[in-house]
């Protein structure tokens, strides 16, 4: 897996490395700068581990002003910057470059203010996703977006990628749960946008910033929406003999007017592996499994699950199993949330992240099996069925370089398929380097031009998170035209 081209580092910047490190050390303090090889190696990749680049240096400031000073210096000296949270990006969004300084926010992880009356919390963005919920959980509140990596990933990364999770069918994704940010621009200017109130005045800069993959600025503080947790939540399992039946059942549920808080889909290979790992009680004799979770009081939950069971009947489920206890619910979710890890124990895999219209599910799954089979590869599918976000996990043998290249080819074909049927390249992981050169399959030259002009408004010299998101050829053409 090595076919994605990365630009050659600038010899000029590499030649200035010693000076740059000395300057950064003077600016940020020796304890905030990592310049030795062993130290930098910890930052050379993210969760797309096939790609590695040693950064020029790593700086971990402790304050917004510290981030500002570093960016001002880099701007003045034409040094590129790669922003980093926890480095859990699956698309190479946090991949460093040899001629770029990594600026990480991991030492800025405090909860600054919690305001239950106004249902808002202000935090530093190096905080992990789960730590926000943990901080307000004892008082019955939570922060809604819940990506699978929530134990490790930072809010900064979530903001960059507009992260989702299993429960966003009801609660929305990151952009729907952010009220305000403090952001450092590439030239060092600190800008505050929004606040604890609803809706920003003027243009929707928050909308542009969230999901911009660290290319517009570095967000150091954010005010997030916190919500009161439901009284109770309970999942149930519905197993079906075909993906058609499971997909039709999801349509019937949503069409009925009941929106569960989550509808997760697993195919047979995914069920096998997750069950072996988590002992969640998943049925092994079905082709497709739905985990459907509802919330409310205990009696409301009984009522809703009863309705859902009735709704499922026309699709002849082989398994109908309502969780009988909080412990069982936890096991059911553990199986799903550890799917990536469980599959990683048996094989290397390449995780895809397209989104498709729900009714295309059966035909898309058939095509995915054909694509992977054509390359001699196996695939397991996990699907946020309620919102159409599909994660095919393409299994390959890491000891065989040709297999990893095939996985990359199969992945690209699958994403093109998602676009063809009316969906998109990425539902929650982001573009990064991984899908950068596939963008032309979804967007016209003009569509990309409109986006690149926005990049130039925020970062005129294109120093932030270079060589990501936009096809390299499109970036080059844009640079020449400018």
């Amino acid at each position, binding site marked *: 897996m090595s076919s994605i081209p990365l630009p050659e580092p600038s010899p000029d910047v590499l030649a200035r490395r010693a000076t740059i490190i000395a300057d950064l050390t003077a600016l940020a303090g020796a304890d905030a700068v990592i310049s030795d090889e062993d130290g930098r190696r910890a930052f050379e990749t993210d969760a797309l581990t096939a790609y590695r680049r040693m950064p020029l240096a790593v700086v971990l400031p402790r304050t917004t002003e510290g981030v500002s000073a570093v960016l001002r210096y880099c701007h003045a000296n034409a040094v590129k910057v790669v922003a980093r949270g926890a480095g859990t990006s699956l698309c190479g969004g946090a991949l460093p470059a040899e001629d770029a300084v990594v600026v990480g926010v991991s030492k800025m992880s405090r909860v600054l203010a919690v*305001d239950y009356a106004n249902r808002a919390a202000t935090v530093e963005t190096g905080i992990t996703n789960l730590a926000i919920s943990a901080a307000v959980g004892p008082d019955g509140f939570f922060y809604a977006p819940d990506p699978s990596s929530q134990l490790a990933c930072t809010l900064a990364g979530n903001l960059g990628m507009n992260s989702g999770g299993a429960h966003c069918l009801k609660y929305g994704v990151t952009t729907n749960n952010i009220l305000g940010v403090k952001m450092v621009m590439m030239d060092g200017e600190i800008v505050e946008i929004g606040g604890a109130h609803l809706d920003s005045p003027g243009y929707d800069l928050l909308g542009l910033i969230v999901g911009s993959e660290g290319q517009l600025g570095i967000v150091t503080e954010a005010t997030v929406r916190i919500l009161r947790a439901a009284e109770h939540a309970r999942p149930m399992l519905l197993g079906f003999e075909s993906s058609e039946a499971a997909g039709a059942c999801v349509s019937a549920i949503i069409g009925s007017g009941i929106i569960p808080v989550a509808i997760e889909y697993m195919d047979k290979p995914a069920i096998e592996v997750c069950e072996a790992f988590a002992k969640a009680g998943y049925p092994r004799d079905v082709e497709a499994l739905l985990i459907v979770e509802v919330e409310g009081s205990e009696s409301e939950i009984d009522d809703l699950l009863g309705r859902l069971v009735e709704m499922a009947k026309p699709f002849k489920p082989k398994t109908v199993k309502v969780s009988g206890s909080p412990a069982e619910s936890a096991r059911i979710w553990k199986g799903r949330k550890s799917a990536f890890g469980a599959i990683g124990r048996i094989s290397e895999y390449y995780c895809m992240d397209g989104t498709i219209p729900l009714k295309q599910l059966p035909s898309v799954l058939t095509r995915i099996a054909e694509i992977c089979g054509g390359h001699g590869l196996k695939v397991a599918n996990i699907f946020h069925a309620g919102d159409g976000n599909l994660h095919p996990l393409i299994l390959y043998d890491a000891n065989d370089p040709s297999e990893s290249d095939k996985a990359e080819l199969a992945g690209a074909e699958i994403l093109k398929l998602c676009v063809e049927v009316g969906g998109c390249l990425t539902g929650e992981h982001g573009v990064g380097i991984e899908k950068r050169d596939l963008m032309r399959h979804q967007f016209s030259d003009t569509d990309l031009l409109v986006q690149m002009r926005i990049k130039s408004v925020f970062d005129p010299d294109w120093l932030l998170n270079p060589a990501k998101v936009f096809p390299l050829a499109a970036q080059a053409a844009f640079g020449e035209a400018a």
Partner: protein
Amino acid sequence: MPATVRPAAEWELSSLIVDAAERGKPVEVIGAGSKRGIGRAMQAALIISTSGMRGITLYEPTELVMSALAGTPAADVEAELAARGQMLPFEPVDVGPALGAPSGRGSIGAVFATNLSGARRVAAGAARDHLLGVRAINGRGETFKSGGRVLKNVTGYDVARGLAGSWGTLGIMTEVTFKVVPRPERTATLALLGLTDELAAEVMCEALGTPFEVSGAVHLPRGMAGRLATPALRDAGQAVTALRVENLESFVSYRCGKLRERLAPYGEVQRFDGDVSLAFWGELRQLSVLQGGTKPLWRISTTPTAGPKVVSAVGRYMAVEAFYDWSGGLIWLEVPDSADAGATDIRRVIAQHGGHATLVRADIGVRAAVDVFQPLDPGVERLTRGLKAAFDPAGILNPGRMYASL
């Protein structure tokens, strides 16, 4: 009155814009024109309306998604959704009648271009939160798309959301794709009478902090409550604090019961069901209590707990009448006529408490003299100017409508 053209297709609109950009001729962009009275008045030689581009182009109820050409009347969209038991999640307010225009005329494109969400916004998010994709034409005449028709999509920058709330100054949306939600089976209203603004905000925040999914929280001080059309809530002659609970029938009863227990310390909690409840929230969507007046009207967003403080602080400078939505965080504020419609004092108060204020209704002369939209901080203003220049370098799309020099 300048000429109004209604292009029927994207290419036609595009060629009009290319022509205007070449000549540097400003264009006023409207949908149906129902919100034309908001913002600074413009002197454009040409008005372009999207009302020639109509029709629902995609509706998948089981995928919770709809697409419509921008000029489609929002009322048509809502009727089509209602026929399938669904609705727009953010309950857009119809500001037309409060501005002296007829009701129910707005276009779906303008709903998103102005991002004016109603009572449900406090629980369900704003119009911009449900915008999934757009097709649009920028001030260069380029046709582009952003987003798509699926609920989860992080492919490229979120340009669609960037256009939401830009009032036609960055581009003209030609087609919008948005998330829809099921219409609740039952709606009930819990009301407390006679609360002060401060206590009302406390009650509303308390209710929204429960797990019972309160989907609307409004407070009408006595004067405003007296303007209600719903007799059950008007005739008590007292301030009305109202909470909306929506769900399946049996759930609504349980949740109302729990909320009444919780709110009992604040006084008697009355419950209204059926037509009374629906009529009450329906008239608020039309801003009924603000209709017929001509006094300057401000729309202020701040935090719910700051809401009453903002009103009381502004009240020290002038006689005000307020109606609170969004748990106290959205204030519709009527102020006496004056040269600046109270802008200086209101903005000074806002600076202290946080938030933003928009002058929604005022004489054309006042709107030309004051900042109708909240003035921006220097950093944000620089980005705003940059975006305007990127989308509309000739400055022809609704110039001056949001900000005098933009």
